[in-house]
Every structure is written in C-alpha cells, then in structure tokens.
C-alpha cells in the first residue's frame, strides 16, 4: 500500500539553526500538508500546499517557516532560525484531492510517520 515517508526520523539542532524536514507524499496525491504535535498536546495544522503554492496556513506558520516542492516527489518544510518552542513531532500528510472537490474517500489525508525535531 502506498505510504507517505519522512526523513529524518529524528533531527537535533541548535537554536538559531536552519532545518529542512523532508517528505515524500503518495505519488498520485496533489495536496500536501504539514502538521506538528508538541509533546502532550494536540496535532496542529501548519500549512497546506497545492499547485506549487500555499493554500492555507495557520498562525503558527510565520515568516520563519517555508515549504517547497523542489521536484516531482519531495515536499519540504524549512524552519529558518529554530527556536526552543519549535521542538515537536512534525507530520507530513497528503491527499488526492481537497475534500470539497471529491467524494470523501479520495480526500482522506494520509500521514507520514513524523520527524521528531529537538531544538537545544
């Protein structure tokens, strides 16, 4: 069964450093997402991406964050200058279509296993 993959599984960085988290969405999916989960808290939406541009973003997704689809397979999240509070599990997800354009089954978001980011 196709799955979303993420690398690395664990990233440790110093405060102020740039990190890039990588995701390979399911191949026929067109919509991509990043979520994060701070330890012990809920899963929070960061950004959605379609047709090489951001569709929606949350308040968390400030100027320190950026996303890119550098080629036909990868989807990346960059944090320019990491802060201690950026420490979290970051999940990438993809869906075939947005929900409002399809039957429910094809718009389900499929999540990757996550990258645990630790900022020291």
């Amino acid at each position: 069964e196709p799955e979303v993959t993420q690398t690395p599984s664990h990233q440790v960085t110093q405060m102020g450093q740039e990190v890039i988290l990588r995701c390979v969405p399911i191949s026929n999916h067109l919509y991509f997402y990043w979520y994060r989960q701070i330890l012990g808290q809920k899963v929070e939406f960061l950004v959605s991406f379609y047709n090489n541009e951001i569709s929606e973003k949350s308040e968390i997704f400030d100027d320190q964050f950026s996303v890119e689809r550098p080629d036909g397979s990868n989807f990346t999240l960059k944090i320019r200058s990491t802060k201690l509070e950026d420490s979290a599990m970051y999940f990438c997800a993809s869906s075939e279509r947005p929900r409002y354009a399809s039957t429910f089954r094809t718009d389900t978001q499929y999540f990757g296993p996550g990258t645990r980011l630790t900022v020291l």
Partner: protein
Amino acid sequence: DQQVKQNSPSLSVQEGRISILNCDYTNSMFDYFLWYKKYPAEGPTFLISISSIKDKNEDGRFTVFLNKSAKHLSLHIVPSQPGDSAVYFCAADTTMGNQFYFGTGTSLTVIP
C-alpha cells in the same frame, strides 16, 4: 482555541467489550469529522469519517455517531481487541477548508 475537545485522556477496556471514545466540538461550521488512530513512533492513520448529513457511519468493528445538536461525536469499537490499543484522535473540518482540527487524543488500552 480548542475547537475540538477530547476530554478523556485515557480509557481502559477489557478485550471483547465495547470501547467508546468521545469528542466534542464548538465550531458549528464543522461538517466533516474523522477519527485517526496513532501508534507510538508512527503517524496518525485514518480510521473512519462521517459527514454532517449523516448521524452514523459503520465500518466493520468501528462505528462513528454524530449528534449535531449536541456538537458531539463518538467512536464505538466492538468488540475491542488488544491491537486497538493506541491513541485515537478526533478531527473536524469545514466545507471549504483543507485543514483538519484535531483533538488532544484519547489513549485506549485494551486489556487481554
């Protein structure tokens, strides 16, 4: 701003019995609801969904009930199995939205 709430952080159930996980929401614009299951060190896995035009959706051992007037949904697992032990997240979305709003999760332990 906690728009989706799961007030029970944990639940323990005997194998073979029913597990009932609850979720409340505050945003009346939500019209699509999902349950995700998450094992340690893995991403959330889609389990079952329901549209606001329905009040029940069933898939094998899993049934989701939606009470729109109470802004409440629940996931029933019958019969519960040890492999169901995981964290269950409720999520909600609006018609034109493309993001899911997640609850904080309920950790289910099914005791053999």
